[in-house]
């Protein structure tokens, strides 16, 4: 029920600026939009194209926010009203529904077709696939259609994602589904954890946004360290597994020079040494789990057997502080059983609760920890400090240790 007119009467308006984007080898979103509009006769898409063309001409944006939602939810739809609806009335409403996809962004054609059909019925037919946070973004719906559209989607198992001061939609790498590097089941962890926080996703009740991202190994294909407050990165605790035969093969086919220059000398901690002319040895005590040697020699080397995940806190974008990368909090947690995942959410609960109580309005977790001081944070959430949390111990003398604190003496006496 998007606003359409009869197909014969429908004609797009001139969009000279946008038309220049229809040339060149890379897929043109403008061509896609036009094709859709022409087929469906969507005036909303026409209006959006007109306004976009106008933005290209004037080099200014013309959307403003508002409040659009579905019953019982406080988030999930990004509302957009045109500031120049007098000029382009066809796109005066142009809201986006953020749909949480399955972990790993897996679909069947059947599931996608169902979405397309519902979206053709209620919305513009435009989709952003996917948003940077990981939502399937259905772009272009009027308020009047939102509830009905959502209800149909929801019946098929789709739910809205987060927006505003909520836990946001999660993201997980393909992980064990297809990747030999995965140290835990990212899809399952994503699914469990985000399901657990459903209430926080739908109803803003936090100081600000809170993102979880799940990467199966330190390659961090989800960019979790920079793009999420809670970055869950797969890791292993024991030795790198070595397939000696495959290793020999690599030396034979790639040559020693290649392996020296591309593997041995590139290990960040010089944990790998050449043995003789055609073998190498890894000093696992020095290995910092960077993944590089495994990446290059992936047939011969794999993460160890004792696998789990590390939790890094406080990654986020530019706002107020500049880019922030998450920092190491827990180097290793098992992530295999139900109980492991419960222990995980038990911990993240404590962290979120603390932040919810102590964070300022619009202050991300990482900023709050920095402002409040990591010592206070650790004490409050019941975590012990350990040296992996830092690159090196502090280099300024401005700390307040309790004066009774003399652990070293006990040690030395012993």
């Amino acid at each position: 029920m998007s606003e359409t007119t009869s197909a014969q009467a429908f004609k797009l308006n001139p969009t000279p600026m946008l038309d220049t984007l229809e040339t060149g080898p890379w897929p043109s979103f403008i061509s896609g939009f036009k094709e859709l509009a022409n087929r469906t006769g969507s005036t909303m898409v026409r209006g959006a194209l007109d306004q976009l063309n106008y933005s290209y001409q004037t080099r200014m944006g013309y959307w403003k926010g508002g409040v659009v939602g579905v019953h019982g939810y406080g988030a999930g739809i990004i509302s957009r009203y045109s500031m120049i609806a007098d000029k382009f009335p066809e796109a005066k409403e142009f809201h986006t529904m953020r749909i949480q996809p399955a972990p790993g962004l897996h679909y069947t054609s059947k599931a996608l077709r169902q979405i397309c059909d519902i979206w053709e019925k209620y919305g513009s037919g435009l989709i952003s696939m996917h948003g940077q946070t990981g939502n399937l973004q259905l772009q272009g719906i009027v308020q009047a259609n939102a509830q009905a559209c959502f209800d149909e989607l929801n019946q098929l198992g789709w739910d809205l994602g987060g927006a505003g001061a909520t836990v946001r939609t999660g993201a997980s790498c393909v992980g064990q589904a297809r990747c030999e590097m995965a140290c835990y089941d990212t899809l399952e962890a994503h699914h469990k954890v985000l399901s657990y926080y459903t209430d926080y996703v739908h109803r803003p009740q936090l100081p600000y946004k809170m993102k979880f991202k799940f990467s199966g190994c330190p390659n961090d294909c989800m960019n979790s360290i920079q793009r999420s407050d809670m970055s869950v990165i797969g890791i292993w605790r024991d030795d790198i597994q070595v397939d000696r035969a495959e290793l020999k093969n690599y030396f034979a086919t790639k040559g020693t020079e290649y392996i020296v220059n591309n593997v041995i000398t590139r290990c960040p901690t010089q944990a790998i040494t050449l043995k003789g002319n055609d073998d190498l040895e890894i000093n696992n005590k020095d290995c910092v789990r960077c993944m590089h040697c495994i990446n290059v020699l992936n047939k011969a080397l794999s993460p160890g057997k004792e696998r789990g995940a590390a939790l890094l806190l406080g990654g986020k974008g530019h706002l107020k502080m500049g880019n922030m990368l998450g920092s190491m909090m827990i180097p290793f947690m098992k992530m295999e059983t139900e109980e492991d995942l419960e222990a995980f959410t038990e911990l993240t609960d404590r962290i979120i609760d603390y932040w919810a109580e102590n964070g300022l309005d619009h202050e991300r977790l990482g900023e709050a920890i920095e402002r409040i001081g990591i010592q206070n944070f650790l004490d409050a959430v019941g975590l012990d400090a350990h040296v992996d949390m830092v690159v090196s111990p502090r280099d300024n003398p401005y700390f307040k240790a309790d004066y009774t604190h003399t652990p070293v003496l006990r040690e030395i006496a012993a």
Partner: protein
Amino acid sequence: MSREWKTVESGPHTYRELLHPVIVKNYGQWKYHTRPRPGVLRHVANSGDVIYTVRAGTHRQVTIDIVRRLCDLADRYSDGHLRWTVRNNVEFMTPNEANVAPLIKELEALGHPVGGTGNSISAIAHTQGWLHCDIPATDASGVVKSMMDALFDDFVKEEMPNRVRMSTSCCEINCGGQADIAVVVQHTRPPRINHEILKNICEMPSTVARCPVAAIRPTTVNGQPSLMVVEEKCIFCGACFGACPAMEINHPEYSKLAVWVGGKNSNARTRPANMKLVCHGLPNNPPRWPEVTEVVKRILGAYKKGGREWERLGEWADRIGWKRFFEETGLPFDKYMIDNYRHARVSFNQSAHVRF
């Protein structure tokens, strides 16, 4: 509106039934992978099972028509299964090697380039821009389309030293995330305050609190409580505009584009690193932003020439030194590229290490 359906707060969609059967069978049991050609991965399981992945670029801002066509391909070549990557590429997985070549052919016929794997330039992560956001100064989709047209070859080939991740963001907030090369809006003037609308729509205390440098102060304008910006303090970040639409930071001329390089999120070899500013003041020049593409091409050209295998862009610059980076790219270094924010000191060269 009368509703029959009672919402099920189901959270993320279930995934198990969406996975390809070969994946379900070999879940967590993959042994290694190879890349038979750009855009194609071949994963081998401990069981001996093999799955081929064909990766193709998309418009990201797609439509139901485009999605349906991709579904057709999935039905024909990958048993009805498909997935998207974090960089908006689509992936088809099939155990059937014979499906790979025809699938590629059809994808290319539809205009979806096959590539983005290994040491290629993958699709550029980007953001809403003028199409949908309420605070953008540019149109990320357009900038990206323009750049990818120019970098097309490096998407379908694997000829860079290592993978190249790029992003483009339409305001300084940087929803596109950091990357090997990122194009981000940069404002060069303080916000002008629209006192007309301010009084109706501004939550003034939040707006004041949003400013990272406390440049916003309460004031009175025509007898009404309003806000003012202390120009000397203001760092043109636009954070206030996100809090209050009356803080008009965007400007057709004063809002520019900047190029950042060396962001790295993976832990491979070096620790993850923040990206660095290497070019700014580029005009916001729709519909094709040629200056941006030119700068990006220069950087990529120098990296392609000088980078060692497996060396990410930032690692290359760190190795050869940033002085050489500017020499090789022909970009000028200037005083604005010296940090003067909170942790400025740690980026200073606190040593006598210099190159001549």
